[in-house]
C-alpha cells in the first residue's frame, strides 16, 4: 500500500520521460490524473487506518536493503506522518491543476514534480534513517532543478544558494544519523528500534553533540533563525508551484524530523536542550514576523511568515521537552498543535504562494506598491487572498487557529514565558491586514488596471486548499483523532 503510494508518481514520471512524443496537453492532464490517483490511494489508506500500538507503525513494510549496516527499506505511518502524507498529496494535486496553463516544457515539469511527490511522501513514511536521508537529499536535488529550470529573476543564484545551504544541513543530519547508528547496540538505522533503544541514554555529552548535528540539519531545512537566509531568495525566484511545494511540503521535512527523530531517539539530550530549542522557536516567531512586516514584496513577505509559523512548531516541540509531572497533558496538546500546524501551514501557505504566482503571471511583479484597488478588477482573487491571509494569521474558524491555539495552550502551561511568542500573532495580523489594504483597497491603479481575475484552473487549485483549511477549522475532530494518540506517545517517549 505505502510503496504504491510512494512509487506511483515516480513510475509516472519515468513514463513521462520515456515518451518524448507525448503532447503537452496530454502530459499536463496525465500529471493531474496521477496526482489525483495518488491522493485517492492516500484517502483509502486513511480510511483503513487504525491507530497502531505505542511505538509501532501502521501499514508496515520491511525489506532488507543494506543488511551490512542494518539499514532496511522500512515504511510505516502513524498519527504524526499520516496527516502530512495526506497534506503532501493534496498540495501536489493542487500544483498539478495550477500548472494546467504552463507552457514552458510541461512534460519535463510534470515529471520533475511527480518525482518530488514520490520523494516527499517517501520521506514522511520512511522508518529507516538512511531511507529518510535518501529522500531528504533527493528532495533538495529535485527542488534545485525546479528553481533553476523554471524560476525567474536570479534563479540560478538562488537555486545554488538553496542547494548548498540545505545540502550542508543534510550532511550535518547524516553525521547525526551515523552517530546514532554507532551508539546503538546492535548497530541499526531502524527508526522504530532506535526509538526503543534511545542509544545515548546516560551519556549527555555525546548525546548532546549528536542532537546538535541533527538539530542543525533540521533547522536549516525548517528553517529557523539563524539558518533561514536561503529561504527568501529561493521563494522569490522559484515558480509559483515550486514555492508552494517548497513551503508546503519541503519545510515540513525539517519539523517532522524534530518529532520523528530527534525527540523520540534522543529524549535525554532533548530535555537538556529544551530551553535552547524554545528560545530558537521564540526568536524565529518574533524575528520572522518583524522582517515580514518590513517587506514590500508579497512573496518575500509570505516567505518570512513561514519562518514565523515554523517558529511556533519549534516552540511547541521544545516545550514538549520540559518535564514536570503535572504538564504531561499540556505537552501532548503542544505536540498535537505542532503537527496540526504543519498540515495547516502547508495548506494555507501553499494557497498563498499559488496566489502570489498569479500576481507574477499577470503583472510580472510582486511589489505591493505596484498594485492598489485590485479588489475591483479581480474580486475572486481578492476574496481568496483574504481568506488565505486570515487563515494564516490565525482567525478562528480556520485551521491556523486550531493549530496555534493548541500550541500556545500547551506551551504556556508548560512554560509561561513562551507567552512572549504571542507577539508574533499580533504582528502577523498587522502585516497581513496591511498587505490586504495596500493591494486590494482604494482606487484601482498601477498594475491593477486590466488585471485578469482568477481562471478556472487557479480557482480549482487554490480553492480546495482553502476549503480544507476551513474544514479543519470547523471540524478539527477527525484530524485531531489521528494526531492525538501519536502526540501522546511522543510526549511519553521524551519523558523516559
Amino acid at each position, binding site marked *: 500500500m505505502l510503496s504504491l503510494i510512494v512509487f506511483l508518481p515516480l513510475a509516472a514520471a519515468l513514463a513521462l520521460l520515456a515518451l518524448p512524443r507525448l503532447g503537452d496537453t496530454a502530459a499536463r492532464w496525465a500529471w493531474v490524473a496521477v496526482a489525483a490517483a495518488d491522493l485517492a490511494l492516500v484517502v483509502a489508506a486513511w480510511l483503513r487506518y487504525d491507530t497502531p500500538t505505542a511505538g509501532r507503525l501502521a501499514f508496515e513494510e520491511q525489506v532488507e536493503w543494506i543488511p551490512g549496516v542494518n539499514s532496511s527499506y522500512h515504511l510505516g505511518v502513524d498519527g504524526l506522518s499520516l496527516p502530512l502524507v495526506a497534506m503532501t498529496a493534496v498540495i501536489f494535486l493542487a500544483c498539478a491543476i495550477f500548472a494546467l496553463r504552463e507552457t514552458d516544457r510541461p512534460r519535463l515539469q510534470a515529471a520533475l514534480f511527480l518525482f518530488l511527490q514520490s520523494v516527499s511522501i517517501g520521506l514522511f513514511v520512511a522508518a529507516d534513517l538512511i531511507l529518510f536521508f535518501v529522500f531528504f537529499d*533527493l528532495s533538495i536535488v529535485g527542488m534545485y532543478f525546479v528553481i533553476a529550470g523554471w524560476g525567474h529573476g536570479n534563479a540560478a543564484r538562488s537555486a545554488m544558494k538553496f542547494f548548498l545551504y540545505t545540502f550542508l544541513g543534510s550532511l550535518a543530519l547524516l553525521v547525526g544519523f551515523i552517530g546514532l547508528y554507532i551508539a546503538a547496540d546492535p548497530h541499526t538505522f531502524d527508526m522504530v528500534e532506535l526509538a526503543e533503544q534511545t542509544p545515548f541514554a546516560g551519556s549527555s555529552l555525546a548525546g548532546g553533540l549528536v542532537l546538535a548535528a541533527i538539530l542543525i540539519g533540521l533547522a536549516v531545512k525548517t528553517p529557523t533563525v539563524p539558518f533561514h537566509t536561503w529561504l527568501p531568495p529561493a521563494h522569490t525566484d522559484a515558480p509559483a508551484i515550486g514555492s508552494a511545494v517548497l513551503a508546503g511540503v519541503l519545510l515540513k521535512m525539517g519539523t517532522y524530523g524534530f518529532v520523528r527523530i530527534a525527540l523520540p531517539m534522543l529524549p535525554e539530550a532533548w530535555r537538556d536542550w529544551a530551553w535552547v530549542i524554545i528560545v530558537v522557536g521564540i526568536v524565529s516567531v518574533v524575528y520572522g514576523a518583524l522582517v515580514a512586516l518590513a517587506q514590500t514584496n508579497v512573496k518575500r513577505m509570505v516567505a518570512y511568515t513561514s519562518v514565523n509559523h515554523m517558529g511556533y512548531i519549534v516552540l511547541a516541540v521544545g516545550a514538549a521537552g520540559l518535564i514536570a509531572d503535572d504538564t504531561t497533558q499540556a505537552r501532548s496538546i503542544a505536540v498535537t498543535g505542532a503537527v496540526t500546524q504543519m498540515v495547516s501551514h502547508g495548506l494555507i501557505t501553499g494557497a498563498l504562494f499559488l496566489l502570489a504566482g498569479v500576481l507574477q503571471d499577470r503583472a510580472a511583479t510582486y511589489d505591493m506598491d505596484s498594485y492598489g484597488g485590485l479588489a475591483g478588477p479581480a474580486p475572486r482573487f481578492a476574496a481568496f487572498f483574504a481568506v488565505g491571509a486570515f487563515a494564516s494569521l490565525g482567525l478562528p474558524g480556520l485551521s491556523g487557529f486550531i493549530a496555534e491555539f493548541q500550541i500556545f495552550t500547551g506551551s504556556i502551561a508548560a512554560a509561561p514565558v513562551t507567552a512572549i511568542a504571542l507577539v508574533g500573532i499580533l504582528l502577523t495580523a498587522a502585516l497581513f491586514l496591511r498587505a490586504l489594504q495596500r493591494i486590494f483597497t482604494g482606487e484601482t491603479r498601477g498594475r491593477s488596471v486590466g488585471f485578469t481575475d482568477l481562471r478556472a484552473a487557479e480557482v480549482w487549485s487554490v480553492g480546495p486548499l482553502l476549503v480544507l483549511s476551513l474544514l479543519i477549522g470547523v471540524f478539527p475532530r477527525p484530524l485531531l483523532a489521528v494526531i492525538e494518540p501519536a502526540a501522546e506517545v511522543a510526549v511519553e517517549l521524551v519523558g523516559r
Partner: protein
Amino acid sequence: MRPLLLLPEIVVFLGGLTVLVSGSFLPRTRQWVTRVIAAVALVAAAILAAVDLPGLGQPAMEGTFTVDTATGVARIVAALGTLIVLALASDEIAGSPRESETYALFLFSTTGTLVLAGADDLLVVVVGFLLASIPLYGLIGIARTPRGAEAAMKTYLLGALFGILLLLGVTLLYGVSATTSYADLTDRLAEAPQGVVAASVVAVLGGLMFKAGGVPGHFWVPDAAEGAGGAVAAFLTTVPKIGAMVAAYRLIAMLPDTLAWPLLVAVLAVASMTLGNLAAYWQTDPRRLLGWSTVSQVGYLLVPVAVAGRSDLALPALLLYLAGYTVTNLAAFAVTTAFPDRRDLDSYRGMGRARPWLGASLVVALLGLVGTPPTVVFAGKLTTTAAAWDGGLAWLAVLVFVNTVISLFYYLRWIAPVYGRGEPPARTPPGAFIPAAWSATTAVVTAGLSLALGIGAGALWSVLSV
C-alpha cells in the same frame, strides 16, 4: 607456488603481449582486432576472478601474494574499469598511429594494479608499483601534444622520486626486520626501533599515494588528466587507485599497534580531500576539474584505510567505495570524451536540453561523486564514515562531510551551465552537441550502473563483506 591462483593477472598480461605482437603485424585499418583481444582478456580475467569469489585468503607464490575477497573484488573492478576505458578509447584512439600500443600499455598497467592489490610482501609491492607506473608514463605522453609531453615528464620525475622513496622505505623495513613478508613483519616491527619504522612506513605510503594520486604524491594528477588523451585520463584517475588503495589497506592493517598509524593516515586523508576540493574550485577545464576531484576522492578512500583492522566495516567499505568510485568517475569522464573538443565548462551550456540522456548521466555522475543518494558512492561514503566513527575517528567522519559540502560547489559549477538557460544550443557544428557514439553510450550505461549499484548496495555489500 600455486601459480594458477594468479590466472587473472596472467591472462591480462598475456593479453597485453598478444595485443602488442599482433598489433605490429596488423595493418592500420584493422587495428581494432587488438581492441577485441584486449577486451576478451579483460572479460576473461573478470570472470576468472568472479569464479574465485568468495576468496578465503589463499596464499600464492610462497605467501607473497594473497587471493582473498579484496584481491578478487579489485581484479573484477580493475578489469571492468579498463574495459570501460577501452570503450572510451574506441572513439578517440581507433585508427590513430599507436592504437595497439596504447591498449597493450593499458593492460600492462592494469596487471601492475592487480599485483599491487594482492601483494602481501613489500617486494611484490615494489614490483606492482613499477609495473603499474612505467606503462602510465608512456600512456600520458603517447598523445604527443605539448601538454601531454609536459604531463608525462612531470609524472615521470615524480614517479621516479616516489619510486625511490618506496624502495628506500622497503630497504629500511627489511633492514630492521630481516623480512619483507607481511606475515612476519607484524611481530618483528613491534620490536624494531620505532623511528625507523615510522620513517619507512611514511616512505612506502608516499609511494602508494603517488600511485593513487593522493597527497603528497598528487601533483601529476591534474596535469595528466588535462594533458593526456581522454581515455588515458579516465584510466589514470581510476584504475591505478584500485591497486594502490588495497595495497595501502594491507600495509596499514599489517602494522603493529605501536604508533598512531590511524592518525597518520587520517591526516593524509584530510589533506588530500581538502586540497583536492579547494584546488578544484575555479578550474575551467572539465578534465582538470575532474583531476583535482579525484585527488579529493583519494582522501575519502583513505578514510577506511585509517581504521584498517579497527572496524569490521573498514574493508568492505573500502571495496564498496572503490567499485562505486570507479563506475561513477568513469561516467563523468565518458561525458568529456563524448565531447572531446569542449574543454571549458561554459562550452557545455545547453547540453542538458540538446542531449537529455547525456545531461542526466552527467548529473548522476557529478552528484554521485558528491555522494548524493541513491548513487553507489553514497553507500560508499556512508559505510566509510560509519567505519571511521566505529574505529574511533568520529572527527574524521565529520571532516568528510564538511569536505563533501565544499566539493558540491565545483560540481554544481559544471551542472549549472548544462541546464542553464541562455542561447538555445546550436544545431550545426561546431556549436551542436554531437557526441561520440561509444562515449555517449558508455556514459549512460555507467551512470545507470552507478544508480543500480546504489539501490542494490545491499547485495553488493554481502559479496564484499565475506
